[in-house]
């Protein structure tokens, strides 16, 4: 089911170009003041600062952009968006970069995007996210047998507090038609 999902929502070059054009427009007015970089709580772990990233988008340095881990480290805190003196929607730009990398489909993008993919596949199937099945989907996508181990302490804590339960199917399939429609529109756009 989930494999079919990721294959049918494939990178259409049109969509890729649309994301890129949107990105250029979003950060086109950046004046390189660096306020965004200074505001970012995760900048210490990024390989390219947010400010430099916008410059690279303006210059169309696509290969370097897609190799960066910067946008995968954005936690959507909106601090940069709040403070940018030009009022640019920088958090959306980070989101668009994630979509661009997803369409590009590199192994790095698959690894870093695995959580979002698993989450959305679970929403599509169940209508409401079911935490246990969603995490299971995430582990399967990461294909790293040691990864689930690092979640055992949390899992045990949740178990002892009665927080793990079987998936509810109350809204199962309710969102299928909307997902199908959006997929068709985005591939064809």
């Amino acid at each position, binding site marked *: 089911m989930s494999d079919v999902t990721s294959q049918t929502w494939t990178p259409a070059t049109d969509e890729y170009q649309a994301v890129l054009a949107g990105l250029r427009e979003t950060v086109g007015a950046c004046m390189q003041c660096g306020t965004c970089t200074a505001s970012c*709580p995760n900048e210490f772990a990024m390989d390219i600062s947010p400010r430099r990233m916008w410059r690279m988008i303006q210059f169309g340095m696509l290969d370097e952009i897609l190799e960066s881990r910067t946008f*995968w480290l954005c936690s959507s805190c*909106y601090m940069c968006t709040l403070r940018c003196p030009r009022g640019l929607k920088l958090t959306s730009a980070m989101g668009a970069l994630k979509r661009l990398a997803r369409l590009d489909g590199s192994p790095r993008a698959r690894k*870093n995007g695995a959580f979002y993919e698993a989450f959305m596949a679970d929403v599509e199937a169940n209508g409401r996210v079911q935490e246990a099945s969603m995490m299971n989907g995430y582990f399967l996508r990461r294909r790293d047998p040691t990864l689930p181990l690092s979640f055992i302490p949390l899992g045990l804590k949740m178990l002892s*507090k009665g927080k793990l339960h079987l998936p509810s199917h109350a809204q199962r399939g309710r*969102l299928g038609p909307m997902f199908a429609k959006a997929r068709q529109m985005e591939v064809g756009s």
Partner: protein
Amino acid sequence: MKYAYYPGCSLSESAKEFDVSVRAVMDRLGIELSDIPDWTCCGASAAEPVSRLMNYALPARNLAVAEKDMGGMDVLAPCSACYLNLLKVNREVVADRHLHGRVNEVLAASGLTYRGEVRVRHLLDVLLNDVGAAIVAQKVTDGLAGMKLAPYYGCQILRPYRVFDDPGKPTSMEPIITALGAEVHEWDCGNRCCGASLMVGHRDVAMRSVAAILAEAEGADAVVTVCPLCQMNLEAYQAQAVRMGGRRVPVLYLSQVMGMALGLGEDGVQLGKNLTLTAGGRKRITTRAWRTEVQPGGEAGRQEGENNLNKGASHV
């Protein structure tokens, strides 16, 4: 006062105690919540990296249902991520004719359409501006005198849209904390990011934020949150955070703290569901242990409480 209630996925799963305590507190305050029928996931922060259209259509579906079936009542969302996603539809989609048309095309696949007429409200906004701190204070039966609470707002109810608070220096929880008889712990971390979903894929990065926030909570009896993801990050990884300079501290939902003061009792707000709150920590809260600590010899009480918390953590 009546609201269309959007609990969202977290509150139906791991954050059940948030849901239960919100419903109980609102009931006590004379507010009626009626669930949006057949509500579905808002996409949280996972939709934007996958599909721009679904990022808008998922929350829009719930607003469309509320608009159609609930007479345009305000939608109340306790979860920060749900709140922001729903609000974004009103701010970004309805204002953009092309995008609005496309989102409605997706909704049409489920026989729905959204005109843009439903107001989206966060729990804190409703408590502060519709109910008011004075009413909260009137309903207090078992005040929290002597308890010091660190208000933690997180990101998404404050940014990017400035609606009911100052995104750089939020204060909206303070009148409520004071109304409960408790004290506000002054700190600068109330609007600092907890790392959000980075905790899943880049835990080392998120842990830096969590440890820094927990370190600044020094001196508070509890951190108070209004977001299930913040709650989870601040609560569930304290053992690691301590090794990075953080401090162990109970983390509670605002609605749980309110419920305690409004006489709902420990079970009424489901203190037993909080991940790192052990029996000892719970007892401290229910017996208002901090009241005695200002007396000489009170240090012993605090010491014991902390030991209990530590003991609980080593079990997991």
